[in-house]
């Protein structure tokens, strides 16, 4: 009796010890590290709900959701540190059209052919070139689309009506005329800007918002060979003069006017501004009763394509691709895009009634986009140019001086390579 009990107890004990080992062998865990921005906790919740559904359908795969809250620079530093120490996540997000650098450095795995072909055939018309450039390296796709952002013109419909404006501005001259009509002043001070301009803080952000003005004037950042910058040519100077004149001649905005940008728009302190689709989710919370629309911003906007990719050092590549393939199913990815208020990235999603009938997202679909060159120093160049644009906006330099000095520095960087 004692022997039987001992045997039973031993078997039970061994069963308890061994069972998780077998279970663990059956289930693999793959980590997804991604940049969730400074405050956007709701994105994490949306992804968690998708992961729950995936795990239910694929009991052998567990996804470890690892969102990174913080700035892009800190995210990149942490990700690169992990990847170069070969302790990286299995899957990770890459922002700002920088995926090609990861692919070039051998840190990302090419997308399996079947998935790559199906995605390439399904990229939305507006974003096709941007996505191919943003997700590829030497003709091969290295990531699946995750998010996209670019500037379009947000405008307050009630203010347009009040100013007697019945159609949308289609070029820079009309934009100036509209901005003048929409500006409100008290004792000579601007209290409502006709258009909120990115006139200070410098950096890449200021360049990103100025590209529309540059391209609308027929200017460009580089020559075709990418060997030199052409920002200080006639078109570039004209674009910056126009921009500075909006502040000091037309006085449609003031450098120190607060709140500005999306906050100013939500608080009816600005009639127009240029920003990406994320504003939609922001306004839902901040100004649910605001009557607004989105139209193409004159010139071309820079498309920012965020990607999800699989690390070449991942030990669970197959499971990782299974998850990404599942995520790219139109009915699944549409859930993500709808919840976070994204521009549809796949045509099969853009054709869905929700996106077809969404006036705001349709406004974005008409925006002409700039061809982003795959250049390792593009971000650095944008920061340098942005700092000089700020100097012109503060009248520390004339537009010609600012662009000449910026061109000199940018040329040095281009020659370094």
């Amino acid at each position, binding site marked *: 009796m004692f022997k039987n009990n001992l045997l039973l107890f031993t078997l039970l004990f061994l069963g308890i010890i061994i069972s998780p080992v077998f279970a663990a062998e059956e289930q693999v865990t793959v980590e997804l590290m991604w940049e969730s921005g400074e405050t956007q906790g709701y994105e994490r919740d949306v992804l968690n709900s998708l992961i729950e559904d995936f795990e239910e359908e694929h009991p052998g795969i567990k996804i470890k959701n690892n969102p990174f809250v913080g700035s892009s*620079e*800190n995210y*990149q*530093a942490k990700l*690169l*540190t992990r*990847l*170069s120490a070969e302790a990286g996540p299995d899957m990770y997000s890459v922002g700002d059209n920088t995926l090609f*650098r*990861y692919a*070039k*450095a051998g*840190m990302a795995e090419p997308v399996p052919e079947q998935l790559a072909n199906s995605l390439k055939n399904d990229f939305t018309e507006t974003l096709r070139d941007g996505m191919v450039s943003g997700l590829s390296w030497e003709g091969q796709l290295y990531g699946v689309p995750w998010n996209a952002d670019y500037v379009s013109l947000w405008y307050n419909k009630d203010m347009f009506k009040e100013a007697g404006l019945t159609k949308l501005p289609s070029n820079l001259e009309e934009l100036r005329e509209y901005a003048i009509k929409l500006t409100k002043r008290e004792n000579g001070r601007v209290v409502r800007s006709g258009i909120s301009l990115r006139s*200070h*803080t*410098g*950096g890449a952000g200021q360049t990103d918002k100025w590209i529309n003005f540059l391209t609308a004037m027929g200017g460009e950042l580089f020559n075709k060979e990418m060997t030199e910058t052409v920002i200080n040519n006639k078109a570039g100077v004209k674009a910056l003069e126009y921009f500075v004149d909006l502040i000091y001649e037309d006085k449609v905005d003031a*450098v*120190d*006017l*607060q*709140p500005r940008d999306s906050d100013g728009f939500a608080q009816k302190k600005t009639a127009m501004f240029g920003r990406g689709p994320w504003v939609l989710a922001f306004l839902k919370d901040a100004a649910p009763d605001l009557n607004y629309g989105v139209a193409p911003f004159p010139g071309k906007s820079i498309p920012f394509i965020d990607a999800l990719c699989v690390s070449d050092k991942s030990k669970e590549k197959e499971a990782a691709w299974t998850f990404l393939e599942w995520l790219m199913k139109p009915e699944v990815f549409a859930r993500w895009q709808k919840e976070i208020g994204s521009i549809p990235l796949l045509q099969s999603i853009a054709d869905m009634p929700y996106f077809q009938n969404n006036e705001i997202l349709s406004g974005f679909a008409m925006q002409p986009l700039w061809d982003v060159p795959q250049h*390792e120093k593009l*971000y*650095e160049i944008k*920061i340098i140019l942005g*700092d000089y644009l*700020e*100097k012109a906006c*503060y009248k*520390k330099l004339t537009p010609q001086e600012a662009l000449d000095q910026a061109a000199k520095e940018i040329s040095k960087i281009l020659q370094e390579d």
Partner: protein
Amino acid sequence: MKKIKLNTLENRHKINGMIMILPAFIYFIVFVYYPVAHLFKLSFFKYDFFKPHPEFIGLQNYIKLMTDADFLNGLGNTAYFALFMIIFSVGISFFLAIMIDKSKVLNNFYKIVYFMPYITPMVAVVLIWGWLFQPGEAGLINYFLSFFGIAPQSWLYNTRLAMPSLIVICVWQGLGYRTIIFIAGLKAIPQQYYEAAGIDGANAWQKIKYITFPCLKPVFQFVLIITTMEAFKIFIPMYVLTQGGPVGTTKTMVYNIYKQAFQFQKWGYAAVQVVVLFILLLSLALLQRRLTK
């Protein structure tokens, strides 16, 4: 070879002492000395995380630094910030320490009140001040100034006002800590000195000049060194409130290091700037020690 005798009391004390300091020694080697040595090494390389092997470039980073307008601007801004931060921090906290030390009522209350900002996280402090410094009439400071007929100022967007505004924030935040150190120093001065000076007819200023200042010399030295270190390492207010702007007027040395390392991925070039900052701080600390000896 000479053998160490373990049985003598002195040697046993030595060995015990060594064992005791071993963990701290290992900690310093791994987390302080090695990274510092590695940093010096890195300053001779071109390195970013996308390239697996750093490229040795000799003194190129150092040569480039000498003509880098951004670096020189950062150096100038840091010196400007440090100078006024040191003058106001040390001056005001010393004055407050004397006031609190002399005060018979609510002595501890004042100590707590002044110390509170120091234990509040810097980011929170900076965000609150950012709100106070808002331009237009929305900002609380502008609102108060309007009672005196002063027009609203763009504190953080004006090229002349941005840096002084940040100095105000930092002086205010560290005031309590420095005040407490001064109070501790004042408490250590024997009261008999003041009583004797009083009998000899010394007035309040003479007592401060001939008793307080000389007795507080080591305390001044300590406060000056820590304030200088803090001032030269300043980063958070610039990062959170002004991003180095407007027009680079609040770009400091550490902000430039951050920019080179994290935004441009130029780790070697960032390392050179850290080396320069390290040498600068070390020289200043040695100079201060010499001057206050």
